[in-house]
């Protein structure tokens, strides 16, 4: 007699028990299956526990066998390793330090700062220690007794782990918080013979043969890095008795950014005065999250670890620099006029600021290892365009318990959430009706909403030299709508504010006397406006934005309140200047 599998897919213990009892009802030998203390019930409970355990176990095995459904980090790492993907580890905060040693010993070829020298800096109340990852040489500057040089320091400390090679050995770094880019591996012949060679991280099997001193870096089940040496076919193997010496940098994950001043913890030189200047520490990132690993593994497969088509560049940069919010790449043949032999890349940082030259260089170096030989990657800055939103609501306070201020706060949150969800990336869209719907849905009291949208572009005036400016709102703009924050010009005759205004496609400067006198236009034209493309040219002028302002904001009303960003343009809502007003109705 077969057991009736009334619900074979269920993992619920009670339902499994009901299935077994349903089976027992069909026989006449035993009748006590329904009594909790009966021997039959005891046996059934054991069988249920056993069945449930195996059902759960098998479901878990099935789940953990696939990247999409895996939950355990060890499973996800294992699935990623199968596809040749090494999840990105933590990135330590770094800074470039320029050291100048004055009044020191004369006539030295160089002065050395040893690898691992420590430096300290404060961020808020927290103190962070940095050390140089390589020794630094300070070279003579030409001034007697003065030496200077630059070197990179990284947050945390250098440490070394030594392994003896034996059958079955695993080479797992014992520390968490290891930046994988700092791992250096040296294999020596034995404890008594320090001859050896440096092994490098294996990046491609194509260039690897049986004698290549290379290792593969993987993450083990506990999140620690494991070094795997070659098998004699791909990569040189290590032999019993060899000694593996691994040095690496251990840091505080995600910490140590934003420190402006570093100083050595000990006196580095017996003679001379050492002064240090450093770039603000930056770049610290936590390791890749499980969600990110799952996403990147999928992109990693079609990309094949190379940069050939546009999406390969985007994938590779996102993988190596997860701190970037968005990346866009395109072939130079799409430029007007075409620029052949180049791939252009634009990167959006979390603070919407352009990349520093050093960071651009770092990105290019990372890409150059994987892109087509004849193609030159070039990074161009993104062009941020802000949107200022003014919302006018009709509200009926009787329809909810909210006050007007509550509703204003809710609406501002909705607008801010819309900004995070839909904008702040390349190829984004601001759709007025979409935002209006979300505003109306945020509270029963909001009956309707109307939006007034302003495009904002910023210029950073040269305060001393006549300079021309070019900006683009990247959207058609309404004639006559151009304006800007007030500024001053050189040597004004009276206390007066000035603004750019749109005079039928021509940029003029209007003077607004502070004493209440009549406004007037300055002589001459100061540029032109293309209403169709949204491009604005301002001819050479010296202007100063008003105090407390970084740059000069220029505004224009878009011809259409649905705005689409293309190319390098990135839309974002200026949430600090969102204005919400309302008209109360009672019916």
């Amino acid at each position, binding site marked *: 007699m077969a057991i009736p599998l009334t619900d074979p897919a269920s993992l619920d*213990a*009670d339902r499994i028990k009901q299935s077994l009892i349903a089976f027992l009802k069909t026989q006449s*030998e*035993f*009748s*006590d299956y329904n*009594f*909790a*203390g*009966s*021997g*039959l019930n*005891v*046996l059934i*409970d054991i069988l*249920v*526990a056993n069945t*449930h355990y195996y059902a759960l176990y098998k479901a878990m095995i099935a789940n953990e066998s696939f990247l999409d459904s895996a939950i355990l980090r060890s499973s996800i790492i294992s699935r990623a390793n199968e596809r040749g993907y090494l999840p990105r580890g933590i990135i330590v905060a770094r800074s470039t330090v320029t050291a100048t040693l004055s009044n020191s010993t004369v006539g030295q070829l160089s002065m050395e700062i040893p690898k691992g020298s420590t430096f300290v800096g404060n961020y808020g109340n927290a103190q962070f220690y940095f050390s140089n990852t390589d020794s630094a040489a300070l070279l003579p500057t030409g001034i007697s007794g003065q030496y200077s040089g630059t070197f990179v320091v990284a947050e945390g400390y250098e440490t070394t782990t030594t392994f003896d090679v034996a059958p079955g050995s695993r080479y797992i770094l014992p520390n968490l918080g290891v930046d994988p880019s700092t791992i250096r591996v040296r294999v020596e012949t034995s404890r008594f013979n320090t001859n050896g060679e440096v092994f490098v991280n294996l990046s491609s099997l194509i260039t690897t043969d049986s004698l290549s001193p290379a290792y593969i870096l993987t993450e083990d089940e506990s999140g620690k890095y494991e070094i795997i040496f070659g098998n004699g076919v791909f990569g040189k193997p290590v032999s019993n008795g060899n000694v593996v010496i691994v040095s690496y940098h251990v840091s505080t994950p995600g910490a140590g950014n934003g420190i402006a001043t570093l100083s050595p913890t000990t006196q580095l030189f017996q003679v001379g005065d050492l002064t240090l200047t450093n770039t603000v520490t930056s770049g610290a990132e936590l390791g890749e999250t499980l969600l990110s690993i799952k996403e990147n593994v999928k992109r990693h497969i079609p990309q094949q670890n190379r940069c050939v088509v546009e999406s390969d560049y985007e994938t590779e940069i996102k993988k190596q620099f997860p701190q970037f919010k968005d990346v866009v790449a395109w072939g130079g043949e799409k430029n007007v006029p075409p620029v052949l032999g180049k791939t252009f890349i634009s990167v959006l940082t979390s603070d919407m600021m352009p990349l520093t030259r050093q960071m651009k260089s770092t990105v290019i170096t990372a890409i150059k290892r994987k892109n087509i030989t004849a193609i030159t990657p070039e990074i161009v800055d993104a062009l941020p365009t802000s949107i200022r939103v003014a919302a006018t609501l009709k509200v009926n306070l009787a329809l909810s318990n909210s006050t007007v201020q509550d509703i204003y706060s809710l609406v501002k949150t909705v607008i801010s959430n819309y900004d995070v969800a839909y904008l702040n990336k390349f190829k984004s869209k601001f759709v007025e009706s979409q935002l209006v719907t979300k505003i109306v849905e945020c509270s029963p009291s909001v009956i309707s909403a109307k939006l007034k949208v302003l495009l904002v572009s910023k210029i950073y005036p040269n305060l001393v030299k006549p300079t021309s400016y070019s900006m683009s709102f990247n959207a058609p703009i309404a004639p006559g709508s151009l304006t800007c924050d007030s500024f001053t010009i050189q040597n004004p005759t009276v206390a007066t504010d000035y603004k750019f205004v749109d005079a039928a496609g021509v940029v003029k400067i209007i003077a607004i006397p502070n004493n209440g006198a009549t406004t007037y236009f300055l002589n001459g034209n100061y540029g032109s406006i293309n209403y169709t493309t949204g491009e604005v040219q301002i001819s050479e002028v010296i202007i100063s934005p008003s105090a407390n302002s970084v740059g000069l904001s220029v505004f224009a009303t878009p011809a259409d309140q649905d705005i689409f960003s293309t190319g390098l343009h990135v839309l974002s809502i200026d949430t600090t200047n969102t204005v919400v007003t309302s008209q109360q109705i009672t019916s």
Partner: protein
Amino acid sequence: MAIYTDIDLSLKKHPVTGDVLRLYDDVAVVRSISHILQVKSTDIAFHPERAASLDEYQFELLDYVSMARIERMIREAINLYEPRAKILALDLTAVSDTLPPGIKIGLKVQVVNSNSVLQIDHYLSKVK
């Protein structure tokens, strides 16, 4: 004709038929009550409430409070999970002058729909 039929968890075989032994009626009820008294809260997956959990008192003092609680737990467990038996008497006796010390449980029950009165003796040892 037996009303209640249960399997004998000694799993001995019947000398004639060769089948596993079966328990009938009164014996089945007595064995069922014994099981209920022995079950711990962790024995049944997802149903800790289906246990008398007398072992929880293994390391309690042999005082009146403990005895009263044990008596209450026995009564609740049998009333809930053995509807075939009605408790007629329940005697708990603390035993400390013999080894191992513990509680002697004397239970007199009547099988429902039957005239049978059954005596069940159980010893709750203080030592495992």
